[in-house]
């Protein structure tokens, strides 16, 4: 049985192989995948998502060049020991501060839509700053 399961957002505009790369990266960051764990086989991914096998190969190839995963001939693709370690403490800290922030936002009178708008605005500008 595969360790993780991928999902596809066909409307996001993000190429399929990139979505797979991101999901593996996140799984590693969140500690769901640890060094030495095997990524789902090409056939498993293809069966569950009904996508082109070359797309999976491209994603795994990208992960390999990022150093997150490595292919072992005849065995599959595995998370490398040099993959970024899970954020662990950082994640718990971030989670706590996010919970606090939500409490503050609601106390200030923001409803769900306002919170969403605020989040999108900040996320967008963060991304734009990164690209430039």
């Amino acid at each position: 049985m595969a360790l993780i399961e991928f999902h596809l957002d066909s409307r996001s505009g993000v190429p399929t192989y990139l979505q797979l790369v991101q999901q593996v990266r996140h799984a590693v960051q969140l500690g769901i995948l640890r060094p030495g764990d095997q990524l789902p086989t090409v056939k498993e991914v293809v069966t569950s998502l009904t996508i082109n096998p070359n797309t999976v190969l491209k994603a795994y190839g990208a992960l390999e060049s990022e150093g997150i995963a490595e292919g072992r001939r005849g065995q599959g693709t595995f998370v490398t020991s040099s993959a970024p370690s899970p954020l662990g403490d950082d994640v718990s800290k971030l989670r706590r501060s996010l919970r606090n922030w939500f409490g503050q936002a609601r106390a200030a009178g923001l409803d769900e839509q306002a919170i969403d708008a605020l989040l999108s605005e900040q996320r967008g500008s963060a991304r734009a700053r990164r690209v430039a």
Partner: protein
Amino acid sequence: MTAALETQGLGRRYGSQWALQGCTLEIPRGTVTALVGPNGAGKTTLLRLAVGLTRPSAGSVRVLGLDPREQAAEALPRVGFLAQEHPLYGGFTVDEMLRVGRKLNPSWDDEAARQRIDELDLPLGKKVRALSGGQRAQVALTLALAKRPELLLLDEPVASLDPLARREFLQSVVEAVAEHELTVILSSHILADLERVCDHLVILAHGRTQLVGSIDEIVASHRLLTGPRDEAEDVSRLHEVVRETHAERQTTLLVRANGHVYDAQWTVHELDLEEIVLAYLGQDAARRREAVPS
């Protein structure tokens, strides 16, 4: 390595009408190609020419380097074909259909075929005409796959299927591609069916190829440019304009870029595949309208 499918000026005429003409393309091995175009575009004609059911009126066609008619004995065992109506013998049981495959194909993998039928829960003793559309499609696909072809040609394979059957059918196809070294060409008049599954594209309209290439390359090279109306000509000198639309002050160009597009005056957008395909089909339609004297 020889291409999976190679055509040179291929054409087929019925009476005075050309169902396909001037078709020159090359589809590499190991790809899954979407053959897209409206009804009557020539998709079925192209696939039938590839498998030797039809004879060319002009030009040539080669599958796996072989002439599908002259070298049929060599080519047929290596090419799987699934015609549009999923032809099966209605009065035969599923078991008898497998027997047909075994008797007519020396490279038939009976164990794999039966395993597949089993996994899909298809009743061996049931007559084909009593099966649902999705079940028939799966039996027909089993027949095409179990002879272990190198190239699989599917003519509108999911057009008549409900969404679930459609998904299951395509799932079977990509699984087969993942397991064996299989090149697939599927035709459809609906791109959405095929987008997830294909990495190559051939657009056909009115018997002519409009665009051929790898999907990644196509998406990477096509851009939507919006900018001032009078600058349009400069762009068209550098890049191939596929579609041009004008508002009073602004022009929108869909181009196939020759290199990067540098110009502060133009806003550059990326495009998804469907928009690109529609632009090419629309271009063909516009050209036809111009050609018709008013």
